[in-house]
């Protein structure tokens, strides 16, 4: 299948769509990492096996689609029957025969496999009617769950590479950049720098060689949108990069993929090979004077490589240490050449903007942050997963409408956005419309879109300590404020968690944070104290409880809590083997005894007790 001109894309598309008409119903099995972990692979096998055993009317292997992630990983494996959109969750292999018999052959709905809204218990039949999906506006995630993840023809069948063809054959590079500038698209990786301006600077920079780089090193713990997109819609990433390359005049692209994402690498690799084979990558693409190829560079486990200059050094096979960027990487980037670097989510928006126009895109979101943003809504929220909403949606809508509120109806305490560079926002900011600037104003950050919801059982001091610990581990160690400053901040906060905090520690930490913020070399350091500062700002009394009263109100910090067995204990003996330290003794049907001297406060007993018989204080 060779694509040498725009017509070929159209022809391929029509031919494929016609071939698919044979199947009145299709089975979409989510094969994102989450669903695979829950056994989606076996579900696909079960469907194929069923076909081996007998002939099923209007159904064949071609109608089973291994799709990308729907974002609702917690409910996986997910199976959707199209075109009706019947939505089955937590499907098991034993359900497959039933699905084939009832839903595929007879077009019936299997009540027991439907998703029940956690709050109302109401069973919802169609995918689009579930609260989790209903409130979303999916642009970047447009194809996730709709097409076979690694198939170029499926991508083309939903309009893929149409925008690229339009850009290359009908637009001048400057027109493309004008369009991106007009759309107001800002970098989805964290900083929110206008993508169009970056492209223009790169285009104007005089150099023979230019590069287009895609940052797929999603390092923020708690964020996984780039992973899902790379796994589930790799061609959209390539298309975005190809348009960027044509616009800035680059002939080589790189995608830097995290080491922890093997499936993303496999799918991207296949997508690149398919494009090379069909002629969408290579020399004289679509018959034009445009050549472009893309290589995958795999990361090797270093958070700091999400920083642009470190990432570029890592691509070159060097140590991923950032350098000072008084000369920007768009002028002097990879191999000292002008380089456009955007992240995965940014690139997948590009084909949409070219296809539908900048004014359409500008109409979504807020004035200064146009378009949508994907968030990974995780933590103590009922519906966890990957969601996409228009910029300006409030935190409340995201957490309570889409996320359906807090697990076990506990009170909402805080939401952490922006990963280790961001901050924790308390309930008073729940009505904040989320965009790049509002989050920064209140001391947090958009970051790559991690959104971690916390309830009253989450200790904010512990959260800050967690992030500082993470950053100490991940600091490259090049500059002193970050290497030594974050280390000392972590020491100080650890002492507080251990009940050894002293008056004045908060002020000392705030003071040291200022130097780390101002004097560090790269973004890791200059934003590193944010989780600490935001928690001190909004949850100061919790810190003071740790320091003054030596208490952890949330019952998390081990040195400040005590586990005790109360009289609700039924003597079920479940906690005895759970305790790895022989601290609990007891007999059947008698209240167990916890030896405080042996207790390490690991919380295992608390986690296994079904009778609320263990108190934390």
């Amino acid at each position, binding site marked *: 299948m060779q694509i040498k001109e725009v017509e070929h894309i159209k022809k391929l598309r029509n031919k494929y769509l016609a071939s698919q008409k044979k199947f009145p119903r299709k089975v979409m099995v989510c094969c994102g990492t989450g669903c695979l972990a829950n056994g989606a692979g076996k579900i696909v096998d079960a469907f194929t096996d069923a076909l081996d055993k007998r002939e099923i009317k209007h159904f064949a292997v071609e109608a089973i689609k291994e799709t990308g992630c729907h974002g609702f990983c917690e409910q996986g494996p997910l199976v959707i029957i199209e075109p009706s959109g019947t939505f089955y969750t937590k499907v098991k292999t034993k359900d497959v025969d039933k699905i084939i018999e009832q839903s595929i052959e007879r077009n019936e709905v299997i009540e027991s496999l439907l998703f029940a809204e956690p709050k109302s218990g109401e069973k919802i039949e169609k995918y689009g009617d579930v609260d989790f999906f209903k409130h979303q506006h999916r642009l970047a995630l447009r194809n996730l769950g709709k097409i076979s993840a690694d198939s170029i023809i499926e991508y083309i069948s939903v309009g893929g590479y149409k925008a690229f063809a339009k850009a290359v054959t009908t637009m001048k590079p400057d027109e493309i950049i004008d369009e991106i500038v007009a759309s107001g698209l800002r970098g989805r990786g964290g900083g929110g720098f206008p993508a169009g301006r970056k492209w223009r600077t790169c285009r104007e920079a005089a150099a023979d060689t230019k590069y287009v780089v895609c940052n797929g090193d999603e390092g923020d713990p708690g964020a996984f949108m780039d992973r899902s997109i790379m796994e589930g819609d790799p061609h959209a990433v390539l298309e975005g990069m190809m348009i960027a390359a044509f616009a800035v005049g680059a002939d080589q692209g790189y995608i830097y993929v995290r080491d922890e994402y093997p499936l993303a690498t496999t799918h991207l690799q296949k997508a690149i090979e398919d494009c090379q084979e069909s002629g969408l990558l290579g020399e004289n693409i679509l018959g034009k004077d445009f050549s472009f190829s893309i290589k995958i560079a795999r990361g090797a486990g*270093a958070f700091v490589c999400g920083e642009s200059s470190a990432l570029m050094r890592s691509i070159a096979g060097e*140590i991923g240490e950032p*350098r*000072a960027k*008084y*000369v920007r990487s768009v002028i002097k980037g990879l191999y000292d050449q002008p380089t456009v670097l955007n992240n995965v989510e940014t690139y997948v928006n590009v084909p949409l903007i070219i296809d539908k126009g900048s004014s359409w895109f500008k109409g979504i979101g807020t004035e200064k942050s146009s378009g949508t943003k994907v968030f990974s809504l995780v933590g103590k929220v009922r519906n966890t997963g990957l969601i996409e909403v228009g910029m300006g949606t409030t935190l409340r809508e995201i957490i309570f409408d889409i996320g359906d509120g807090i697990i076990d109806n506990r009170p909402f305490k805080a939401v952490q956005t922006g990963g280790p560079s961001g901050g924790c926002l308390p309930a008073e900011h729940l009505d904040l419309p989320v965009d790049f600037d509002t989050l920064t104003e209140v001391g947090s950050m958009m970051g790559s879109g991690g959104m971690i919801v916390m309830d009253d059982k989450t200790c904010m001091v512990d959260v800050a300590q967690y992030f500082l610990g993470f950053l*100490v*581990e*991940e*600091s*490259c*160690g*090049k*500059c*002193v*404020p970050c*290497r*030594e*400053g974050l*280390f*000392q901040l972590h*020491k*100080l906060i650890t002492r507080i968690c251990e009940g050894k905090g002293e008056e004045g520690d908060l002020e*000392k930490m705030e*003071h*040291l944070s200022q*130097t780390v913020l*101002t*004097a*560090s*070399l790269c973004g890791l350091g200059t934003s590193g104290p944010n989780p600490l500062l935001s928690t001190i700002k909004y949850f100061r009394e919790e810190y003071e409880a740790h320091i003054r009263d030596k208490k952890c109100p949330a019952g998390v910090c081990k040195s400040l809590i005590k586990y005790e067995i109360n009289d609700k204990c039924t003597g079920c003996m479940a906690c005895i083997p759970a305790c790895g330290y022989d601290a609990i003794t007891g007999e059947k049907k008698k209240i167990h005894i916890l030896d405080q001297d042996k207790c390490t406060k690991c919380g295992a007993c608390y986690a296994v007790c079904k009778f609320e018989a263990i108190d934390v204080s």
Partner: protein
Amino acid sequence: MVNITINGKTAQAKEGEMLLSVIRRLKIDVPALCHHEAVEPLGACRLCMVEITKTEWDGWSKFVTSCLYPVEPDLIVSTHSDQVNEIRRTIMDLYLARHPNSPEIRKLAEEYGVLKTSYEVQVDGDNCILCGICTRICDAMGFHAISLVGRGHGKTVAPPLNEAPPDCTGCLSCALNCPTNFIEFSDQDDKRTIWNKEFEMLACVKCGATTITREFAEHLSKNRDIPFEYFETCDSCHRKETSLTMGRIAAWTKEAQS
């Protein structure tokens, strides 16, 4: 050449040259622990930070490491503003917590008024401040014998695999340029030891005085096209030789003239 203002005085600088070079040329004392002119600036110690602004920035200023900030026209630089001094003070405080036994660190910290660190002292800390001067010089000399190993707080300077470095020629540049004199070596008789590697010192064929290691001399001779016998005589014997040769020539000339 462009004009910039440093601490209220106008100075001339080459456009694109690093700000620290201009500051040092003016003999303004700005500390820097990771800077060496022989190698590319790194920006690791952050002590050379200065505050910069421009008239058109409308009161807004920023902090930059002068060692790698290229000069721009009309820059207004303040090398010792209150905030800059505060940053340096905190950095020295952090250094002192990690390297409490280094005389060099103690002295510089004292200059910024830090007599005792406010932070937790690292008891088992060594005096390596991870400035990378040694490794960068080693790279610049083309040996690449040692490198910064690991990352973050646990980073160290070490030879590959923590064994005697195969590429080291014992030139000693790493040790002699270490700002805290951390790198150990010993020169005894005709043996030099550094990085757990032993080297034979070349001895002067005339007087027996030692000069550089045999490996270093062989490297220079081979890669830099210098006759090896040049290295076999020490500088003082070379000078004597020179004077005798010139003396003989002078005597002949005198003879010829008379």
